[in-house]
């Protein structure tokens, strides 16, 4: 225990839990993120209940583009789990392929989102225009920020796979990044119907 190998070098598995620090840590972080996005959904529900009429998503938002975005994010969820699978099978080439695919899909998602927002701004629809748009911009904005965070993490892992492919903690970190990315996808799975379809 007191050896110089600092805590960070060996994947420490909890004696009683059988879970590595990284996995427990990322699940704790996702727990707090669930609370964060649940608060945004509570706000959305409370604001909607408080108002007598609420615009339908169809006539305000671009639903086809939203659908495409959802499919993009789902595909990226698949590619990130494939990347994790290849990391376990120690196939670096395929890992880098799938991870770059994930990053590409993430960037595509942001581009489509940026285009959609641009469309709204062009029509003069800003967060201050109506409470529906305020909720829309806040929720999709905070989600986009989380997507950007995930992209940065994934790119760092892609870049690290060059030098630290054999680092004992590398697979744990890929798993953690994958779990976070799946969470970001799940938030969008709930966000899309709530804002666009109801």
């Amino acid at each position, binding site marked *: 225990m007191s050896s110089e190998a600092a805590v960070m070098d060996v994947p420490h598995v909890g004696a009683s839990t059988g879970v590595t620090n990284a996995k427990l840590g990322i699940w704790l972080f996702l727990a707090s993120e669930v609370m*964060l996005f649940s608060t945004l959904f509570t706000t959305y529900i409370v604001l909607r209940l408080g108002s007598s009429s609420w615009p339908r998503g169809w006539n305000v938002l671009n639903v086809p583009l939203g659908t495409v975005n959802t499919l993009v994010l789902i595909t990226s969820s698949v590619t990130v789990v494939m990347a994790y699978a290849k990391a376990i099978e120690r196939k670096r080439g395929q890992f880098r392929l799938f991870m770059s695919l994930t990053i590409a899909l993430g960037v595509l998602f942001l581009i489509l989102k940026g285009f959609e927002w641009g469309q709204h701004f062009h029509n003069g629809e800003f967060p201050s225009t109506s409470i*529906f748009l305020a909720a829309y911009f806040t929720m999709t904005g905070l989600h986009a920020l989380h997507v950007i965070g995930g992209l940065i993490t994934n790119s760092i892992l892609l870049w690290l796979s060059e030098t630290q492919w054999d680092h004992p903690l590398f697979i744990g970190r890929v798993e953690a990044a994958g779990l976070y990315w799946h969470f970001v996808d799940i938030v969008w799975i709930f966000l899309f119907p709530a804002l666009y379809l109801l």
Partner: protein
Amino acid sequence: METNHHNQSWMKKYVFSTDHKTIGLQYMFTALSMLLIGFIFVMIMRWQIAFPYAPIPVLGRWLPARLAPNGVMTGAFYNSLGAMHGTIMVFFGIVPLAVGAFGNYIVPLQIGAPDMAFPRLNMLSYWLYLTASILLLSSFFLPGGAAQSGWTSYPPLADFNPGQTAWIVAMLFVITSSLLGAINFLTTIINMRAPGMTLWRMPVFVWSEFVASVLLLLAFPPMEAGGVLQLMDRVLHTSFFLPKEVMIFGVLYKGSGGGQPLLWQHLFWFLAHPEVYILVLPPIGIVAEIIANNTRRPLHGYKIIVSSMLFIGALSFVVWAHHMFLSGMSPILANFFLVTTMIISVPSVALLTCLIYSLHGGSIRFNTPMLYALAFLPMFGIGGLTGLPLGLTPTDIYLHDTYYVIGHFHYIVVTGSIMAMFGGLYYWFPKFFGRKMNDTLGQIHFWGSLICMNGIFFPMFITGMAGESRRLWVPTAQLHDLPVQHWNVVSSVSAWALFLFQLPFIYNFFHSLFHGEKTVENPWHATTLEWTCPSPPPHGNFTKPVRVYRGPYEYSLPGAHRDWIAQDIESEAAA
């Protein structure tokens, strides 16, 4: 990766260190100075409360005319002092001291871990906290001045008052810092306990940090979301918390409307109530450690104490709206929160009962830490009891937002948490620095602080009963406060006296850092693991692998020749 510890640069070893002990001390020094700053704010406020419209004696001349024209404090400056006092003490003072300083330093030692689970995340938490503190304090120099709508910052006032944006950004930083800290703590406590250290052999302090971290992890994000919404309201002119026709400074605000001011209160108090349990649980853990050590007997009802803490942790999420009985929330919902509030008072009483029963049959030593721990019990009792009329809906109609409320929570936080943490400082100072703090100065500091604190807060019950409402810039403007105005003067004088009694503590603290009486590894003959390693512990904490064989408070075993057995000693004979 981690370079060999010996030849690390001074910068890496002391400033950008990832060692939980150095980070713990960084938190401690920053949190103590923030508490002092918050206390200075309140001393200035007390002048205005005691002698409204009288120019502030010393400081009046130096304050800019915008804040205090010819020395007399303006309403806006008073409100910003009040808001900053509340925010600094709660989010930048006590939580970083209780969780950041004591938690960071002591928890890994008490569970036999070499360091926290994520050392770099630990360092990031501290630096986020420091950035937030600097941003918050510098908000005084912004054009509009610091935030002025109370530490609760209710919209629509907070949507238009100056200084709120800096407050929200600082809050987002400190919330992220505490959030990352909570992840670190929970992973460490759950995953990195020494072999043999089962959950039910953990010291009560570790349990209290565990529950506090769960609350930190799950209660903070809602207010972070609320802060983002309020930031959007202020910066992008959305109307999350603004109804349709709201007027701002007499002009009809052309926002989109549709928002609800009560939504912020729900989100804020969803955090703020677990927050107040985060403020009080770790100090209760410290008091339990000190009492067990100085009565030389195991704590009475260890299982009751731990299950009470877990019960408080779980319930603290469904009690929040007892702050909102009169806020326009539906009265029927108030009945629900009335019941949950009364349920949560039961484990708090059970905690106190067990701590008092732990004195029974002990051999009590009245050294400085024990004095603080013993003083905590009746003071926390008064704080808890005065919560009863505030928790019941009809009596809360009268006492809501009066000085009675201020007396109630200050009794729990000041004479409770802060006194307990002073005790923790005296108790663990030998472990931090290998030296003892002077006892006579400690006694002076103790008795002086205890008397002055009661001098400040007991009159608040009297003024509160007379109906004096809180946050009054000029209390004498309201005629029904005039008969009790002299009690405000008593409180103010006691507050200034309390500052004088902090001077021996500050001197004692810094003097003992270098010239305190050198001590052995375990001066208090305590049984928990942090006393089995050298003080101050080296990097990696324990010189030999740690294995735990017994519970945390094995004192006065019959037949043993010593009245304490450390947790990592296998058989009594070897003791």
